[in-house]
């Protein structure tokens, strides 16, 4: 059943890639990097599914009663393109299978680029271009702080009227991303 959805997904991803520049990494380098650090830091090591993260999430849910995310960027891309967000095991399973299938058809850079085009960053900020526009960021020249601010919005989407609580949560997320960035640099 899930495989019947694959051609449609492949077509959607291909369409998203039509607008891409010849070198994906040049324009969005910092933003892509920040999104990987924020959402899926083993992105370049797995093939669509992060089994380590899944085991950790299951462990945390069962033994610590803490719900943790384990979705890879490919899985998030599949979820966004399918527009299916229900809390069902069947949805999760098909998402995993479709994410794996997509990762065999497209490169990591392509899938990341496609995800950025459709990801939800907040009010009037669907897709990285609109999100950057909302923050007055020029994507090709985004600093690490700007890239982290954008990446943080994936977990903490910005509402139309952000509250002080929102600002705190967003700032916390930005600090988390930038500290990972620092650790990575020093390593």
């Amino acid at each position, binding site marked *: 059943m899930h495989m019947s959805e694959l051609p449609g997904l492949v077509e959607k991803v291909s369409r998203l890639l039509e607008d891409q520049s010849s070198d994906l990494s040049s324009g969005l380098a910092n933003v892509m990097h920040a999104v990987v650090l924020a959402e899926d830091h083993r992105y370049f090591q797995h093939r669509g599914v992060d089994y380590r993260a899944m085991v950790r999430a299951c462990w945390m849910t069962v033994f610590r009663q803490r719900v943790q995310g384990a979705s890879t960027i490919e899985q998030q891309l599949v979820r966004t393109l399918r527009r299916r967000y229900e809390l069902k095991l069947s949805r999760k399973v098909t998402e995993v299978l479709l994410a794996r299938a997509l990762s065999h058809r497209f490169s990591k850079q392509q899938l990341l680029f496609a995800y950025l085009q459709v990801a939800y960053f907040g009010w009037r900020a669907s897709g990285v271009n609109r999100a950057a526009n*909302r*923050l*007055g960021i020029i994507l090709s020249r985004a600093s690490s702080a700007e890239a982290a*601010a954008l990446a943080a919005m994936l977990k903490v989407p910005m509402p139309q*009227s*952000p*509250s*002080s609580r*929102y*600002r705190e949560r967003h700032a916390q997320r930005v600090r988390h991303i930038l500290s990972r960035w620092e650790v990575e640099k020093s390593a």
Partner: protein
Amino acid sequence: MTRSSEWFAQLKTAYPDPADWKTKGQIRKRDVFRFARLWMTEGIPYAFVDKPAVYELAREAFADRLHVHPKEVSISGSGRLGFSLASTKFGKPYVSARSDFDLFLVSAAWFSKLKSDAELFVARFSSGLAAPRNEPERTFWEDNVVRIPDHISRGFVNQAYVPSFDRYPNAQACYAACISFQRIVSAELSAELVRRVSVRVYRDWEAVESQIGGSLVYALRETGHDLS
């Protein structure tokens, strides 16, 4: 003739004394909006009652800066009627050396431009990209980003709530227009010391009437006037 309250029917001057208002019987809410429409948006403001030409020159300078018609520019606040209509200082007289000039501009185009800048400022401040340089800025900005979306939904943007930085060119242009207004007034009225000029940009006249009339209704209620 359309019915109106005694209070409204007995208004005889362009600058009525607010002290009389409590003795003039019940005030109808609809009349407050009528009052806002004429007394608070049209004619020569109290602050310029002796020097209307200065006012016209100053608003012309303001309008030139933004390429709008001078008739789209007016004054609200205590400079309009000669006393404050804010609930916290209702009736407090206008003092030229101590009062600010609260201009307003009615322009859909400028509302749209300033709204973009204001929304950009809110988004940048909320994402930590617009960092205040000092404590007063921190305090004001935190307050401003809460108010801006509410103001936009009511059809206006206050230029003073958006920093006049290069990143916000429309807010900067509005600020420059305020400075032009201030220069004319300061030059023409030697005795006058203009403290601060700011502008509120309204989407349309409906938003002006609704906001100014609504504020007055609130102030009258808060100060114990008989309002129906």
